[in-house]
Each structure stands twice: as C-alpha cells, then as structure tokens.
C-alpha cells in the first residue's frame, strides 16, 4: 500500500515535469523555471501537498546534485581548466568580483548577516553553463569569435565553484574561525591534490574505469563519484565538489562516453532536485521577496553584461560581439539553486530560499529569451555601423 502511493505520487510528479519540459521546448526556454514552479505547486503551502514521497525526493535531490556536478566535471578536462585559468584569469576575477557583489550586498542590506552574504554571493555569481551552452548552440553562436571567451569564463567559474563550495560548507556549518580555517585548508588541499592527480595520473584512473561495456562503465563511474562524494562530505568538503573532481579526473574519449551514459540519469535526478528545492520553499514567501528578486536580477544582468563585454573586448572582439558575450552569460540556473539549497539545508535566513527561487526563476527564463530578442537588434546595429 505504501509503495503503491509512493509510485503514484512520483509518477504524477515526473509525468508533470515531462509535460512541462515539452512546453518549455516549444516555447524555446529552459525547463528549469518550470520545474521550480512545479516544486512550488507541490508540497508545503502548495496546491498539491505530497503525503509519502518526500523522503525519496530528498535523497533523489542529493543524487541530482552529485550527478549535475559529475557531468559538469566530465565536460572539461584538466588541461582545459589550467589553460583557461592562465589565459583568462583577469576576466575571471572581474566576473567574480562584479557578480558576487550584488548578492552579498543584498544579503547585508537585508540584515541577514555575513554567512547569508557568502551564500547569496554564490547565488548571483555563477552563470548556468548548461543554459548558456544551449543558448550558444540554439542561436548558432558556437562559431562566433566571442564564444571561446564566454566558454573560458564558464570554466573559470566552475573551477571557482570547486574552491567556493567547501568554503561555503564550512561557513554554513557554523564552526569557529580556527576550525573553519582548518576545514577550508583541508578542502583546498584536497582540490589541489585531485587536480594534480587528474593532470599527472588521470590515465590510471581511466584505465581502472574504462570498459567496452557501457553498463560496466556506468556502474563504475557512478559508484566512484558517489564514493568520493561521500568521503568529501565526511571531510566537510561538500559532496558536490567530490563528484565534480571525479568528473575532471576522467577525460578524453572515456569522459565523452560516460557523459553520454549519465545524461539521461542526470536529467531525471536534476529535475527531482529542482522539484525538491521548490518543495522546501513556501510559495507564499516568494511574493514578498519578488521586488527584491526582480531588482537583484536587473542589477546582476547589468554586471554580467559588463563582465562579458570586458572579457570580449580584451580578446579583441568588436562591439556587437561584446554585447553577445554579455548576454550569453546572463542565465542563472542549477548551481545557484544548489548553493541556495545548501544554505537552506544549513538553516540560513528563511527568506533566502524564496529570494533565490524568485531570482533564478527570473534569470533562467529571461536569460535565453533576452539572447533571442537581442540577436536581430545587434545585427541591425552592426549593419548600420
């Protein structure tokens, strides 16, 4: 009886997500905002409270985070990370300073304190590499001159995430300064060691994981990622970072194959994760935060635009391309919610979840639309000039 009701609820949720995904596809937007809305509609304070499947969804959401970070890590290899770190460090730093500032400032102005400020800085900082990659591909911008700049900024952000997440986890745990410093030091050392291992000895890990059979490969990669994520969590480094580092350690043909196998799994659990975040957020709490979320969205759109224009100009791209680089960076999505999710789970200010949800709802939906709308405008201006 219990199993039956879990299945019915889960089936209903996943089916609803499928229908929403189809709608998003037709409208040409990212499905993430719709998944979030679905999560808000279910559960606490929503129209359809869930009775039995919340526990499963909570675990599924954790899995979703691990798989999101694992596939992100698989996308890049260690060489690419190091090269783009060398070549675009300045653009990356401008990105970090300009875009972490609005979130941190908002949290401080709202009187939420320094811990929430660090979390909100992450929420406004990270561009959604998933949505941006899709925008670049959909609009045929992959060949553009500014695209390598945009991509290497994304790589830089992801690398920053590997350092930021353990720091955030330590701060959220509310440990004392001394213990916190040790935790952060352990985290940074782990990240460094894994990167070094990936660069120098990646082929040994690959030799262990590699298999001509896709089933074996899938089990080995997921198993390795979960185990490392668990150990990372034990060391207070955050499970997400562990999974990300496993992804980076694997490269080449193997990474490509593993990614193709993992994507369906990731899509399922990532969708569950967005629903879970929505479930935890009381929809009634979003409305009072809507004004702040809107303002924050406008400000951080401007800062991302400035970041993209600055980085593209440094690469010698003309004005129209600079504007495209800025616009491509606007979408926020999965990782902003992952960061807010960590903060909410650690008991941050109760309004942080709703603010982040509102913020991501706006930018995940509006980012790709902005790119689509602005494209003909930029072309017109370029033609006149």
């Amino acid at each position, binding site marked *: 009886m219990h199993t039956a009701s879990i299945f019915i609820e889960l089936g209903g949720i996943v089916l609803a997500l499928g229908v929403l995904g189809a709608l998003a596809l037709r409208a040409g937007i990212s499905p993430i905002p719709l998944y979030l809305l679905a999560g808000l509609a279910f559960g606490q304070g929503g129209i359809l409270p869930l009775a039995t499947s919340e526990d499963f969804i909570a675990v599924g959401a954790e899995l979703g985070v691990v798989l999101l970070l694992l596939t992100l890590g698989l*996308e*890049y290899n260690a060489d*690419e990370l190091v*090269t*783009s770190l060398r070549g675009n460090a300045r653009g990356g730093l401008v990105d970090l300073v300009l875009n972490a500032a609005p979130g941190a400032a908002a949290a401080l102005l709202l009187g939420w304190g320094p811990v929430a400020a660090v979390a909100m800085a992450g929420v406004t900082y990270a561009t959604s*590499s998933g949505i941006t*990659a899709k925008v670049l591909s959909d609009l*045929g*911008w*992959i*060949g*553009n*001159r*500014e*695209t*390598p700049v945009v*991509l*290497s900024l*994304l*790589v830089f952000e992801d690398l920053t995430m590997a350092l930021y997440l353990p720091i955030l986890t330590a701060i959220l745990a509310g440990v004392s300064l001394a213990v916190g410093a040790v935790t952060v030091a352990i985290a940074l050392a782990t990240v460094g060691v894994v990167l070094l291992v990936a660069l120098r000895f990646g082929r040994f890990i690959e030799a262990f994981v590699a298999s001509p059979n896709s089933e074996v490969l899938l089990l080995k990669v997921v198993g390795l990622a979960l185990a490392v994520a668990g150990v990372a969590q034990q060391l207070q480094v955050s499970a997400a970072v562990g999974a990300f580092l496993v992804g980076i350690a694997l490269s080449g043909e193997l990474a*490509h194959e593993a990614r193709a196998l993992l994507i369906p799994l990731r899509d399922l659990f990532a969708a569950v994760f967005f629903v879970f975040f929505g479930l935890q957020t009381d929809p009634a709490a979003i409305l009072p935060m809507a004004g702040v979320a809107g303002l924050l969205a406008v400000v951080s759109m401007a800062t991302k635009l400035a970041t993209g224009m600055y980085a593209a100009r440094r690469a010698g*791209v*003309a004005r*129209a*391309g600079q504007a*495209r680089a800025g616009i491509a960076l606007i979408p926020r999505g999965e990782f902003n919610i992952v960061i807010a999710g960590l903060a909410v789970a650690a008991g941050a200010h109760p309004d942080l979840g709703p603010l982040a949800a509102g913020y991501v709802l706006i930018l995940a939906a509006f980012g790709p639309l902005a790119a689509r709308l602005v494209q003909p405008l*930029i*072309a017109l201006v*370029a*033609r006149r*000039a």
Partner: protein
Amino acid sequence: MEIEQTALPGIGLKHEFTTQSGRRIAVVSHRSGRRDVVIYDKHDPDRACEAVQLNDEEADALVELLGAPRIVQRLNALHREVEGLVSVQLLIAEGSPYAGRPMGETRARTRTGASIVAVVRGGQVHASPAPDFGLMAGDVVVVVGSPESTAAVGDILSHG
C-alpha cells in the same frame, strides 16, 4: 594562407581562415564527431551568419567534393596556361611490363622529362604518387610534359 586554431572548452576545436575575397570561414569540430561549417557575417566579422551541421558521412562527402575535382581542374588549368605543355591520361594495359610494379621503376621523369602527377584507380584520384606507389593493370596514369615526352612515357608504359 593562415589557419587559426581555437580551443572551445567543453565543445571541441575551431579552425578558421579568411578567403582571398575577404570572407571568414571556420570548421567547428565537436567532440561528439559533429562538424559545423561556419561562415562569418560580412558586417559583423565576429558573428557566424551561417552554420551548417554535418555528420561524419556528410563531412566526408564534402571533403571529397571539394578535394578530388580540384586535381583535374588544376591539371586542365596547367594545360591551358603553359603553351607546349600537355597532360595525357594513359591506361596501364593488362600486358604492360609495369603492371604490378612500383611507379618509380618506370624512371619516366629521368628518361623522358615528363612527370606522372596522378594515378586514377577505380574512380579515385591518387595525387602526386610516391615512387613506391604500385601500379596496377587498369590504372589511368596522368602525365604532364611536352607532347613528345608524354608520348615517350606512353611507349615506356606499354613496351618497357
């Protein structure tokens, strides 16, 4: 001509160049094996105004279409440009002494002054064959030189 290579992290590689007429063209090689042929906008040289997606088979076909006829075309042009220079196509007959032997053994250039510039076998053009390229009965050899020297090559190929 300079070909510029750019890494696209997470996607693959991009190779681009500017044509003589001033248009920029690039090929984006995705890690998945997908290829995009990209043509840049005249007004906004940073923007791809046309991007055509090709799968493996289509990319191969395009390469062949662009590559093979170019050789024949180049020969014809050579022919037209230089007076007194002809290109002839000679069949290696079943009884030719060089069927089954490396092309270098004909010593065609040393003996006649004419050059073997290509071998057509089964519809495929093997441009600039190396001396160890094995000739076979049924091959068509493309020879460039003066009318006399190319005729002499024809003699060598059929009689030794």
